[in-house]
């Protein structure tokens, strides 16, 4: 028993404590779980609940567009379809939240498959612009049937997720952590167990070569679209039950751009970059909003930060930070802290001696 615990501790030390990026992530997640005890303010709780939920949304965009290269400019479709189906079921049929959110996620999968079919024929910017069209088409449909969908005002009176704000926060945070870990594992190119990561990288880099190597790209693309739709759908369902309204604003062009803005800001093709982008930009903008002057200038502020960061770190903020604190061993590909001169495992010099 003792030796087992010791092995576990050594594994933890080698896999997490020795990698600065993972230490930061661990501290961050721990702080998030302790947040209701550190700052028990309802507004802070609300901002971070929504941030956790948008983190799933942004990560699902990164999973689809970053890793597989299927540039999706209409990601709000998955979110919106799920939010609306959850809200419709809940308001009109009285289905409770624990059932509507999975059903919403399945609606997201179906939407993902529907968008995935054109993606089999189209690529690059053509695909990007076709995906952009879908949520806007859906808005038109929603406006035409205001009796069922609530029209421009949206569908309100959706049930709460649970009784209390703190419980809501923990539910969303747990779902978000689980979803992001699953997406991170699915896209991990070095994983020995799940091979999808490598295949997705291959499809993005060179689809024809991937096909020639015997990868069924059609199947993988559809799979990516449905998984991405699923997680965006989970976020959408939670959102509908958290803010208790499903309105057409979640299908607008700006809402589709938001996950892209967060992900590019944080760093594309990383999953954690998307999460970091949301947790930096979203609370910042919402906190600035509390001040009357900030209320007016918050979007200007967000856009200026975005533009400045992208001009100096076009790969995103997490990539930039990671490149400055971590070094990959040239021999054994293990991640080391930047302050080391020799690899912690194989003792190879990390940088060429001057």
């Amino acid at each position, binding site marked *: 028993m003792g030796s087992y615990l010791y092995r576990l501790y050594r594994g933890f030390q080698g896999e997490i404590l020795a990698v600065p990026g993972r230490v930061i992530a661990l501290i961050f997640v721990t702080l998030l779980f302790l947040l209701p005890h550190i700052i028990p303010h309802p507004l802070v709780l609300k901002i971070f609940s929504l941030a956790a939920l948008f983190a799933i949304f942004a990560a699902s965009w990164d999973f689809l567009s970053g890793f597989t290269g299927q*540039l999706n400019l209409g990601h709000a479709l998955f979110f919106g379809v799920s939010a609306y189906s959850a809200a419709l079921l809940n308001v009109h049929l009285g289905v409770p939240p624990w059932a509507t959110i999975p059903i919403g996620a399945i609606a997201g999968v179906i939407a993902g498959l529907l968008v995935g079919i*054109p993606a*089999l*024929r*189209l*690529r690059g*910017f*053509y695909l*990007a*612009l*076709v995906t*952009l*069209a*879908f949520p*806007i*088409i*859906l*808005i*038109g*449909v929603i*406006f*035409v049937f205001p009796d069922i969908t609530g029209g421009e005002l949206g569908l309100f009176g959706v049930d709460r997720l649970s009784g209390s704000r703190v419980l809501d926060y923990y539910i969303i945070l747990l779902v978000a952590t689980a979803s992001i870990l699953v997406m991170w594992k699915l896209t991990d190119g070095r994983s020995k167990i799940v091979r999808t990561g490598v295949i997705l990288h291959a499809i993005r880099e060179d689809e*024809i070569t991937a096909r020639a190597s015997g990868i069924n790209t059609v199947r993988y693309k559809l799979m990516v679209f449905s998984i991405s739709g699923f997680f965006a759908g989970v976020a959408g369902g939670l959102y509908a039950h958290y803010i208790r309204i499903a309105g057409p604003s979640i299908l*607008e*062009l*700006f809402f589709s*751009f938001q996950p*892209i*803005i967060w992900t*590019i*800001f944080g760093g*594309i093709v990383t999953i954690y970059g998307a999460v970091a982008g949301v947790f930096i930009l979203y609370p910042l903008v919402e906190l600035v909003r509390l001040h009357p002057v900030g209320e*007016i*200038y918050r*979007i*200007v502020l967000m*856009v*200026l930060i*975005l*533009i400045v960061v*992208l*001009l100096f770190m*076009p*790969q995103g903020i997490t990539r930039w930070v990671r490149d400055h604190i971590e070094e990959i061993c040239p021999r054994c590909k293990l991640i080391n802290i930047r302050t080391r001169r020799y690899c912690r495992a194989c003792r190879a010099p990390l940088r060429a001696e001057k």
Partner: protein
Amino acid sequence: MVEAILINGLVLGGMYAVLAVGFALVFGVAKILNMAHTAFYMVGAYLILIMSIMLGFPSLPSIVLAIAIMGITGRVIYKLFLDRVKEHPVAVMIISVGVAILFQEVLLIGFGGHFRGIDPFIHGFVEIGGIRAAYQQVIAIVTSLLALVAIRLLLSKTQVGNAIRAVAEDREIANVMGIDVSRICVITMGISAVLAAVAGAVVAPVFMVHPLMWLHPLTIVLAAVVLGGLGSIKGSILGAFILGFAETAVIFLVPMGAFLRGAVGLSVMVVVLLLRPEGLFGVVFEEERL
């Protein structure tokens, strides 16, 4: 009804065509998806509003001035923001979205969110072959057609036009032939912003001006460019007119059609692309086919 659809379709289609040509030019030459393109159009319209109504300039000089300012703004924005990160196409796109939102917010703060009208330059109606059209609509149609002809002449007859087409065709070869590619990109961006401002000037008196007016044309312009085939100027003009007429027809013929005006145009695009993935006039490269 038919004549109303015809006139409004021509006005709308002409405006979309002018916008789509500018967008397609920048995409073809600089390989940038410039999401701020219709924001230039909005700012152009606002500049005219500021100069003609608030400062009391006569309309023609204020239009010319607005177009000139937008031409410079387009070049400055390209130099300042887009040129530096051009190795990262998605970052460029997001920065252009950011620029567009920045314009929108500045206008919201400066002018508030309400709709504003600009007086028509000439009041009154004209009858052509039994069709009644406001002078302003006739001016809009004629100006957009003139702008399209002008850009056509510029691209085919002048040396700059030849250089632009050469860069769009093949950057490396154009570079080897002694064309300053980055200068051509800046010039193209300027031309594109000028076209956007022309579209803004044309429609400002016909439609209302408000800080969210860039969103709807953006989707339609993107759809028109894809419908015609990315990089094909002829195709994007045709796509713009198809979508303009589709939109007008839906507004006039279908009950609650105004809600569906975006949806119908975009559905047309999706259907066409499913049948012809390279658009109406797009070029198919062998390696790009599945």
